[in-house]
């Protein structure tokens, strides 16, 4: 029996894969075969559905005391070239401009700003809820929560309780990068450690908050370190069950300190999605974040384990380009068309994966083998 067949037998039997299994999958040369296996698991969990949501991203500040090598967004100090911090009015204005649109979620991720008071964040959330009381606020990575706790002298639980009272609905999954200490020391030495990242999510899950999780791949990490990362997430999920979605994030080398590295290739993207679906078997959803992957690879990823394609993130750009048409309708139509073109059924979800709408349309034809 080849190594791949052994791993496949474990998948069929529902036995969790170990580090060696995961690495063997990464090294398996037959990409379609790997994709098929991940697709079987994906279809068992989600059938033909591919989820998307209508969301809005707000990045209230890019000032950040952490100096991560892979980041092109952050500026170290207020006043550095390109640094910005929105006033509360400016941040609320982002939603106010779109309050009439059917968006269901706001995703907020910021730099670790050295000077903003905790009340800024609380008031940011309260103001957004005043504009659209029904909107779900998915805000602040574990790295930010840890930073708040450290800066303002509160426990994680206290930080999360106060933010929840202000309107926080769930946590995004960013800041995980790669858990292996070797990698973390090199690329992001001065932010929340692996244990701290996991602990924030543990506390959030125990409080009943859901969250997502991520992995930044394609820089200096090894296959072993990728699988190890997934296994650490799986262990926490076994403990709490609070993760909804795993989002592998492809490293982009432009405009940061790792620019000498090449970006991961499409082959590696698809392989990573397939292995993630197979190793991280207890996290229900796998998101092909099309902003990072490109829509073409994201479509193919829907056959390599992914069941979610994120949302109408690019709204603002589309809004300016679209002229007379309503931007969300265009974007949404494009997302739906992209999902259908990939042979899947688009399903609009909210942040917690409640189904909002399954637009009508033909079901994909499937092969029926007969004698």
């Amino acid at each position, binding site marked *: 029996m080849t190594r791949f067949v052994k791993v496949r037998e474990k998948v069929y039997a529902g036995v969790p894969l170990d580090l060696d299994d995961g690495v063997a999958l990464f090294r398996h040369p037959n990409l379609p075969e790997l*994709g*098929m296996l991940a697709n079987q698991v994906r279809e068992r969990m989600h059938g033909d559905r591919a989820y998307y949501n209508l969301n809005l991203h707000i990045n209230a500040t890019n000032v950040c005391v952490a100096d991560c090598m892979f980041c092109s967004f952050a500026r170290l100090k207020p006043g550095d070239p390109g640094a910005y911090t929105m006033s509360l009015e400016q941040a609320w204005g982002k939603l106010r401009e779109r309050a009439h649109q059917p968006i269901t979620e706001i995703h907020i991720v910021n730099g670790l700003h050295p000077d903003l008071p905790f009340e800024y964040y609380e008031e940011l959330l309260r103001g957004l809820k005043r504009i659209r009381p029904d909107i779900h606020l998915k805000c602040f990575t574990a790295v930010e929560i840890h930073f708040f706790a450290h800066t303002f002298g509160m426990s994680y639980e206290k930080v999360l309780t106060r933010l929840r009272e202000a309107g926080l609905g769930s946590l995004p999954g960013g800041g995980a990068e790669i858990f292996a200490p070797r990698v973390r020391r090199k690329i992001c030495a001065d932010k929340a450690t692996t244990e701290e990242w996991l602990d924030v999510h543990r506390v959030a899950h125990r409080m009943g908050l859901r969250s997502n999780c991520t992995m930044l791949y394609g820089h200096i990490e090894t296959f072993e370190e990728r699988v190890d990362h997934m296994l650490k997430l799986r262990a926490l999920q076994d403990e709490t069950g609070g993760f909804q979605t795993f989002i592998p994030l492809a490293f982009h080398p432009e405009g940061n300190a790792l620019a000498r590295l090449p970006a991961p290739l*499409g082959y590696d993207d698809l392989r990573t999605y397939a292995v993630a679906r197979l190793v991280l078997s207890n996290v229900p959803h796998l998101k092909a974040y099309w902003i990072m992957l490109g829509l073409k690879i994201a*479509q*193919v990823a829907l056959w390599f384990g992914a069941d979610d394609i994120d949302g109408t993130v690019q709204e603002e750009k589309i809004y300016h380009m679209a002229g007379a048409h309503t931007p969300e309708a265009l974007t949404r139509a494009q997302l739906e068309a992209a999902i259908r073109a990939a042979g899947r059924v688009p399903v609009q979800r909210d942040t917690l994966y409640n189904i909002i709408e399954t637009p*009508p*349309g*033909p079901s994909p034809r*499937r092969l029926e083998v007969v004698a």
Partner: protein
Amino acid sequence: MNSRRIRLAAVSFLNARPITYALDPERFEVTFTEPSVCADLLAAGQADCGLIPVASYAAQPGLRVVPGIAIAARGAVKTVLLVGAVPWPRMAEIALDDASRTSALLCKLLSRAQGFAPNYLRVDHAEAARAARGDRGALVIGDAAFDLSGYPYVYDLGAEWTRATGLPFVYAVWAGRPDALAPADIAALQRSLAAGLAARGTIARAFAEGRGGDAKIFERYLHNHIRYALGSDELAGLSEYFLRCHRAGLCERLPEIAFYETAPVRARVRRDALSAAAAGERLCDQDAINLYESAPLGELGCAADARRHALHKDGVVTYIIDRNVNYTNVCVTRCKFCNFYRPPGHPEGYVLSREVLAQKFRETVALGGVQVLLQGGLHPDLRIEWYEDLFRWIKSNFPLILHALSPAEITHIAQLEGLSVEKVLERLHAAGLDSVPGGGAEILDDAVRTEVSPLKCTTDEWLAVMRAAHQLGLPSSSTMVFGFGETSQQLTGHLGRLRTLQDQTGGFVSFFCWPFQSEGTRLKKRDDTSAARYLRVQALARLYLDNIPHFGVSWPTMGPDVGQVALRYGGNDFGSVMIEENVVSTAGAHFMMDAAAIERQIRGAGFIPRRRNNRYQYIS
């Protein structure tokens, strides 16, 4: 046979006649009326099944649709017209023909999408054609639209819909209560349509005799404008219509499209078709169609990868360094999908001079290039001697393989000179031609070609050039461009023609396929040109074309990442380090790579990169 006949309510318009023309009178009893009345008869239980407007379908919950049959159009429909004395934006009021709710909603939807908010009033079907005056426009549907004249502003709402969405519009479908039709009845309706489609000429002539008018116009209408299939594109168009109506608040319920069960409902494929094809057994057309339409992407990819491995066991993926030189952009064919050509006499038309060509060839050699791919438009004034002189000059001055002139160009030269293609190829071969590129094949099906490139060579002409080239010992590549809205039969038919010729000549060394690039071209189609479909098409072609050795991936159109993945969906060649490319890059494909980047992609997919020549021999 049913004890009692099934009561059908059908539309009396010309466009419905192919559907009703050959209905079996022993099985069906038909009442002919206006579209909206069909729906009323169905609602009142006075008909079992009706050819009803899709808006009426949306309004009556619980109905089932007969699969495969529709009255639809992609683009201009000719018989749903908004007319007026003033342009659409200035119409303060629009009179809606009450014969069809579907077109009325379509008119409201399209008005609203453009920011117009006229008042609407309903008028009787017979009055509609005369209702427009002043700033009041009128929506005129059905056969009445044939007779309209004298309105300065006429908008074809079918064309407007397709322009806004890229999709066909479905006007009417057969629908009835779930228990009204048995599978045998469905089959009878589908058979009737097939017979009716074959009789469109007769139907058009009878219609012209009955009411006056030109039978040719009516026949063209039935052939070129109305589509009778309810395929995936039509369903996508119908879903889009329902969704837009629902989101605009024009229909309360978001209807599901539910079909009558037919036996079998799913595609059927021989149990072993996929594994047999993976093992190198020849695929028959029906299995190929079923696999193409229904096999999961992963399974197709695995089978194609197994074929690729069997044919190229050394794990090598090749690429070539060459330059794509377009010696002229002047072209008489005006293909709708091309952004590159300029018509004769156009100020931007060019023919490259020897100085410019020499510069390009010197650069190519300096960059390690081994081949020049020389192609151009169909220039009306360049004679065969011009090509012969050019080829001799190239071959005596530059160490480059001359891969030149697609079948369309060779056919054009033959026609211009009054020579056979054999003779043209013989002379060009003698002047230095080394091999023939397989471009311009698009889809080798004249129904598709007539629509997208009516003035370019026909299917038979394309194949005749390749046959003649192969017989002279000139190898060639072969290509397929998909995504023109072609059917599965047309797509596999293309592959079938290549395979048959290859059985006879063995002259095709390679195959490339890619989706049609539409950006900025005049051909507005929203067909599926996704990466998922590209991989599916290439994998199927790898299985089907068991006699063509090399498969190139199309990274210039799909991007390097998808190109890399495609190496595991049947590809064994990464194409070319294109020092220059002018055609698809003018239609929205903007990818460039150097040799190092190509080798990195090849290694990343687990293969060994080697450079090749035009015959796919290794040269590194």
